[in-house]
């Protein structure tokens, strides 16, 4: 099938690009330079490629780019800047929730999605929220702590 021009709004920037229908959103995001979106298993098991699509956390490896046409996409890097990081980004860094870093962007997206719906999650809710994100380094304890501390900070400061 011929490529078609689709429109993606990514982290506040608009891209009009001609694409074949068989490309996944993951491939397209990385080719556009959004390499904070990681390619892991490419079958929905690891969560490294998670992004927010129209506010919903999804594995970008399981979405065809054409399906995201006109969509609002936020990647982990799009949540904050170096100068003004998102509380989740600060908390992951402070808690030592990052070792190799490969799972981190997906973890942060799943955490953001959780806190959008439940600003005061229990530990069980946090663990469920990141159950589609595999981390082979940390043992998850610091990741759970980071999400808890970001939730507290956001509740205090009203950020996020």
């Amino acid at each position: 099938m011929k490529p078609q021009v689709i429109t993606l709004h990514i982290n506040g920037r608009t891209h009009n690009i001609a694409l074949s229908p068989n490309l996944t959103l993951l491939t397209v995001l990385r080719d556009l330079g959004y390499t904070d979106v990681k390619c892991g298993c490419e079958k929905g098991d690891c969560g490294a490629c998670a992004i927010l699509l129209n506010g919903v956390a999804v594995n970008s490896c399981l979405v065809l780019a054409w399906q995201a046409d006109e969509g609002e996409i936020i990647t982990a890097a799009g949540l904050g800047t170096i100068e003004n990081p998102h509380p989740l980004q600060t908390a992951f860094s402070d808690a030592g929730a990052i070792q190799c870093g490969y799972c981190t962007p997906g973890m942060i997206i799943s955490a953001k999605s959780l806190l959008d719906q439940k600003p005061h999650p229990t530990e069980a809710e946090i663990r469920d929220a990141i159950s589609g994100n595999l981390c082979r380094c940390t043992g998850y304890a610091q990741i759970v702590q980071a999400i808890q501390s970001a939730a507290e900070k956001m509740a205090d400061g009203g950020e996020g």
Partner: protein
Amino acid sequence: MQSEIELYRPQDLAEALTLLNQLGLDGKLLGGGTNIVSELRDGHHTGKSLIDLSRVKELRGINLQDGYIVIGGGTTITDLIDHPLICTHAGILLESARLFANPLVRNRATVAGNLTDASPAADTAPPLLALNAEVQLMSQSETRWLKLEDFITGVRKTLLQPGELMSAIRWPVPSDRSAGAYTKVGLRKADAISVLSVAVLLEIDATGMCKQAGIALGAVAPLPFRVHVAETLLIGKELKPELIAEASHLAAEACRPIDDIRGTAAYRKRITAVIVRRLLTKILEALK
């Protein structure tokens, strides 16, 4: 090798049905994509025309209509979780939704996709079977309702015909005198494929006798199925430990499990008896 495909993006149900009719055998439906998109990477579905249903709003929603809970085929697993109608009238479906894959997958995966994929381990099948669910199959020329029990015919085999899509799923609102229980046995807590899943729904009459019974098993046969022989045993009788033991034994005998990387056939058969007994006992306790 990445598949070469055609991709159509209908905006509404009428357009989807027209496309499906035109494409015939070449048309393949793309719902949440949680199975199909990863298969494309491996070269499956090459030459097929995929019809993306994600923009078809008519296929999404959960409603109460004429004594039935009716959900659109494109309803996601996340949509089920915490929906008041599902919480109130389909606790066993709610439990299965909470244990379905992981949140990122649940946000995309649809109920119709799970059922038409017809995996022996399809998570939503046992609770929907126990609830006496029916599925609505729609083509450009016809709309028909089938019992879910009849719809799935084998490993990844269903009665869905070319030109048809699963537009809705419905089940009668269970009576106030009914109680359900559900268990999924996996190798880990999250993101697990079932080794066994069991959904039970019983209705008890005013005299304490079992009036209706639904006992459905997943991942222990080529298709998720209802154990009618165990259900029949319970109907018209009072739930007692001896009766529960006998029903559990019948459920295990009805299994046709296989050995795979998640468990042996012998293990599956053994735990079927154990889990069915536990669930029936749990319901007995709850009804006291």
